[in-house]
């Protein structure tokens, strides 16, 4: 509607938005605040009742930076970070490349049953993972992959339906004449894909890479099912394990959570446009 508002209404809009923003922001502010507190600031003294919230509770004094260093060692954050990074890099590369090849096939090549196959691909997006989870688990166990990273990487080497869909939509916008003239000059489909279509498609490739990174970074169920060796835990899984073992160490838990969230927020601020546009197109193309 993009209504232009008078000063009174403008003020009211600000007031409403600020009040609404509080519950969205406060948990994160509280997380950072707790992560910098000493236990004496977090827990009430022996025999003392829990007190009402006071605004100066938000500000840690003294500032306990050491919580972050402690969390690095205690969680152990760096081991998990290494594992998560390896999984993220491999998944992003495999998912984006394989999806692009498949998307090019669906967008630019003609073959029998292309349309029904594409509908089938779209339908798999709505299939609850639970339906295939158990046989998949049995398959990977049979292959001897249980406890390794393989079940968390290999499936994304075969194209991700959402990415195939997004890339196909993008590839379709590349003018037919460009591709046709490359064909006339004797370029093979693979060359056209590699040298013409891929370089033109950086925006959509970036969106998919971003989505895959987030998915792998956040994934909890995969590691929960397939990992059993603490040396191979990811951050998401390791953090939950730490919570269930040392539930009361709030300062360390919050420091670890903050460090777990920080790269995602950083990535968001660096790539804001790709981010927002990616989500917007996923929603409206449905």
């Amino acid at each position, binding site marked *: 509607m993009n209504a232009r508002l008078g000063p009174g209404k403008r003020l009211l809009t600000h007031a409403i938005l600020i009040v609404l923003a509080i519950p969205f922001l406060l948990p994160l502010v509280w997380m950072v605040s707790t992560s910098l507190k000493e236990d004496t600031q977090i827990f009430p003294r022996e025999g003392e009742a829990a007190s009402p919230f006071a605004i100066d509770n938000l500000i840690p004094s003294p500032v306990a930076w050491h919580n972050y260093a402690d969390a690095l060692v205690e969680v152990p954050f760096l081991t998990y970070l290494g594992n998560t990074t390896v999984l993220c890099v491999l998944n992003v590369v495999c998912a984006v490349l394989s999806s692009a090849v498949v998307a090019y096939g669906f967008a630019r090549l003609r*073959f029998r049953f292309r349309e029904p196959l594409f509908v089938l691909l779209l339908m798999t997006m709505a299939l609850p993972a639970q339906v295939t989870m*158990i046989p998949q688990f049995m398959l990977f166990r049979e292959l001897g992959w249980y406890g390794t990273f393989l079940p968390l990487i290999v499936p994304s080497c075969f194209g991700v339906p959402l990415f195939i869909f997004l890339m196909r939509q993008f590839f379709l916008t590349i003018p037919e004449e460009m591709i046709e003239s490359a064909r006339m000059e004797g370029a093979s489909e693979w060359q056209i894909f590699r040298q013409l279509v891929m370089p033109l498609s950086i925006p959509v490739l970036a969106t998919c890479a971003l989505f895959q990174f987030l998915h792998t970074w956040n994934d909890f169920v995969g590691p929960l099912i397939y990992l059993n060796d603490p040396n191979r835990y990811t951050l998401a899984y390791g953090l939950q394990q730490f919570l269930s073992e040392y539930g009361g160490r709030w300062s360390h838990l919050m420091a670890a959570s903050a460090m777990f969230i920080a790269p995602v927020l950083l990535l968001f601020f660096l790539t804001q446009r790709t981010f927002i546009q990616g989500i917007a197109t996923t929603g409206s193309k449905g």
Partner: protein
Amino acid sequence: MRRDRLGYLFISPWLIGFAVFTALPFIASVCLSFTHYTVASSPTWVGLANYQTLLFDDPSFWTAIWNTLVYALVAVPLGVAAAFVLALLLNVEVRGIAVYRTIFFLPHIVPVVASSVVFMWVLNPQIGLVNGILRLVGIEGPAWLQDPSWSMTTLIMLSLWGIGGSVVIYLAGLKDVPASLYEAARIDGANVVQRAIHITMPMMTPVIFFNLVMGIIHAFQYFTQAYILTSGGPQESTLFLALYLFFRAWRYLDLGYASALAWIMFVLVASITYGLFKTHKRWVHYE
């Protein structure tokens, strides 16, 4: 034909992946659901016994169905409505609107495990932030996640924290509503609310519909947050289908039974989605 072969070559990664990781497991899962299978022994055929037990002899199953339906039918429409209203609010031109948009969007990208850990702390009954704030106005808040009469409500409220993703989708949709429609309505003397109801809402129904369907499909698979925050408790008050399936499969290693559960879940999701598509023509507006 040569051309056919080339096309299939390009889509072969997906074809193979689909066969191995979707189609075969899909079929295997039907078969498994008719067996008794605990990882130690090989599967034995039991016919419909798993389904029989589930439907007639397993109160936890019905609890899980009920909880999942409550969650899907309350949290999803609530989230759609809240995100829509928020998008309308964020679609005005005031200074700093980009900052507000960012604030509402941020929680959406916070990893679920991290937000769950934070919620656990914020909702701590004794020393958590929320009950601390409530004490300011003299209310002693409930135990939230640890109180069976509050746990479901709490999870539903927490689901609203991440609506920023849908807000972005709605905002994009709002930009696509032709300005000429509003102009015409304004000339006809329609006020802000009338314009919202008679122009914005109908024009946005395709996007709302998409969000509703995806929301319901996801709600049936609601897992991670519940697993971390409540593990189905207290007293099964937050036992969802996906959780129950997970416990059956990976705690009790009762894979046949869990497969039957998966299939009931699949049939439920498919029929609700189908039902929604049936109503589609009646209220979803396409140009």
